[in-house]
């Protein structure tokens, strides 16, 4: 069975904003606006597809037009394909404005082909879509009937119904072959020599001598569930109970595919059609409803229920693979408690602001470690400290001193400090392969300076541009 939606683009727009009178969608092609799709009223005025938009406006001054959106049309067709799965499991796309269904074996479920067709037409017309339906033993025959006469015999249809390119059609008509029946009775050899093998392939496909498959699209896994309520709810406990039910269903889906949700989005639709979203970013992919539910508490408590909520939809926006894991008896303490805590803190300050340190391979103090979001990294070992480093570091603060050995007396942060003991120097050279503006002053000789006043500072001297700086403080 082949479904053809001749006015898919205009029907899609007119469904949401009905227009009386001629209406066209325009598409910019090779620098000119052309009519992409039009409604019945426009066609009665003599407009046709592909004519330039300025001509169309001249024919019909009260024409209403909108720019076409081919991407939205494809999305609309995809949702129609999902709808068509209710009739049979094998549904594929046919070009940009049609669907092809293999209803063998499923027509009797709807009371036969005629009843199924009637129901299909009724539903589509109620949705505001014009449709042409072709039934056939083969995909080619169904396409031909959908486009060139729904009830006709295949032999009486014009040759264009064989899905041929326009040049071949013109060529065949010049030879007087106008009907498929005529073409069928013509000797095949001369035809193949004149028009190539493509013509005979299309003919055989329509007549059923050569098979043609329907390739149904693979359904991408869909991790969303919804709950519609007969009466609106407003209490936080009620919303949490509804979320609990949704979570149970969603987590079942996730478990089937061994996946875990990373970002969840709960949409609450109110009676007055306003919608509110609660987003939950998890520190680890997970699919355990009992653990996820309490994490929603904070977001749900901030929702303004208004006159009540009557629809809830829960979607796993980001999903990561989460294979089943064996429980370990040894190892560190239960890390799941920590993950839940990180999630809860992350909902308040943003998950990327919960961080951990990772070691990095560099002698430059500022680059000797990395800061990574805790939710997206694992703790790493391998911290090797060759020489003591300060607990706190800051941007280098200049002090007035001269000479290459640490000064006896100096001022730092309005404090008079006296040298007690200095350990060093430890020379650190800039990494020449990275241009770091902070290291333009060249080599640094680091000293650990203990002052008589107690403070232990990490100072450096730059021999290439003489100067003293304080960069950190030991405890």
């Amino acid at each position, binding site marked *: 069975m082949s479904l053809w939606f001749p006015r898919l683009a205009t029907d899609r727009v007119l469904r949401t904003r009905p227009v009386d009178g001629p209406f066209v969608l325009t598409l910019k092609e090779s620098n000119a606006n052309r009519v992409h799709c039009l409604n019945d009223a426009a066609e009665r005025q003599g407009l046709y597809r592909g004519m330039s938009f300025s001509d169309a406006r001249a024919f019909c001054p009260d024409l209403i037009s909108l720019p076409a959106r081919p991407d939205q049309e494809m999305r609309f067709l995809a949702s129609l394909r999902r709808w068509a799965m209710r009739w049979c499991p094998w549904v594929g796309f046919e070009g940009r404005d049609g669907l092809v269904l293999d209803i063998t074996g499923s027509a009797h479920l709807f009371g036969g082909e005629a009843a199924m067709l009637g129901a299909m037409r009724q539903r589509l017309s109620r949705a505001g879509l014009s449709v042409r339906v072709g039934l056939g033993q083969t995909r080619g025959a169904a396409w031909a009937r959908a486009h060139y006469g729904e009830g006709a015999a295949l032999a009486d249809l014009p040759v264009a119904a064989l899905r041929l390119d326009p040049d071949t059609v013109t060529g065949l008509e010049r030879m007087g072959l106008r009907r498929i029946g005529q073409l069928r009775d013509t000797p095949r050899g001369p035809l193949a020599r004149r028009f190539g093998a493509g013509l005979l392939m299309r003919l055989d496909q329509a007549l059923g001598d050569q098979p043609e498959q329907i390739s149904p699209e693979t359904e991408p896994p869909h991790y969303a569930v919804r709950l519609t309520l007969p009466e609106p709810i407003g209490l936080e406990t009620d919303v949490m109970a509804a979320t609990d039910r949704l979570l149970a269903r969603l987590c079942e889906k996730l478990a089937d595919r061994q996946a875990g949700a990373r970002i969840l989005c709960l949409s609450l639709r109110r009676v007055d059609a306003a919608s509110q979203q609660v987003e939950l970013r998890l520190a680890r992919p997970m699919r355990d409803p009992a653990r996820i539910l309490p994490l929603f508490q904070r977001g749900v408590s901030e929702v303004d229920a208004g006159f009540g909520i009557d629809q809830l939809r829960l979607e796993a926006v980001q999903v990561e693979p989460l294979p089943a894991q064996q429980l370990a008896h040894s190892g560190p303490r239960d890390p799941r408690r920590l993950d839940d805590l990180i999630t809860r803190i992350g909902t308040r300050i943003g998950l990327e602001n919960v961080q951990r340190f990772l070691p990095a391979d560099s002698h430059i103090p500022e680059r000797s470690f990395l800061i990574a979001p805790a939710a997206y990294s694992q703790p790493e070992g391998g911290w090797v400290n060759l020489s003591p480093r300060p607990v706190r*570091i800051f*941007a280098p603060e200049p002090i007035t001193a001269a000479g290459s050995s640490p000064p006896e007396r100096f001022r730092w942060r309005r404090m008079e400090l006296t040298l007690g003991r200095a350990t060093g120097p430890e020379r650190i050279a800039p990494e020449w392969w990275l241009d770091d503006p902070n290291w333009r002053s060249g080599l640094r000789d680091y000293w650990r300076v203990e002052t008589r006043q107690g403070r232990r500072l990490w100072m450096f001297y730059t021999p290439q541009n003489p100067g003293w700086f304080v960069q950190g403080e030991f405890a």
Partner: protein
Amino acid sequence: MPHPAITAYPLIPARVHEACGPAAASFALRTAHQLGVDLLWVREDWQPEKLNPRGFEGLDPARLIMARTKGQVDTLAVAEEALRDGALGLVVLEITSPLSLTAGRRLQLAARAGGSTGLCLIPEDMGSPAAETRWHCAPVFDMGDSTLQRWQLIKNKSGTLGVWNVRWDPETRRVAVVPPAGHRPGSADAPG
């Protein structure tokens, strides 16, 4: 070697304590060592001084999780959440303006509910009346020892105050009191 023990140290668990002075960060790290727990460090984003995991005196940086907040309200909220949860044994928070009585009390209640220990690093003279203990920590110069610090207990809800000179023992990773114990509060260069 018999040392006079420090009163109120290790810190009483499931309470919120305060530390100030130039060596407060080191006090927090040593406390985490002594308690043998993982820790959360909450600080505000804009502060110019950064923690350097290379200088953690033997504490494994993998045991630390940092939370970067926009302001003190967020800091307090995160700390309360973590204290109440109890998944991490120590929660260190750096505050920049005085805590109200309510905020201090809330932290104390959260610590009691979750069983985590809290430690506020405060600027000097910004203590909150709800704190269990308050410590002033400063490094002390000593010719032979680069880890010597003076810890002064300046508030204690359940005991006496005192001053101790302590050093860090890198082998046992423990705080050791240096005898003789601090005798004159306020003496800058106590004998080592």
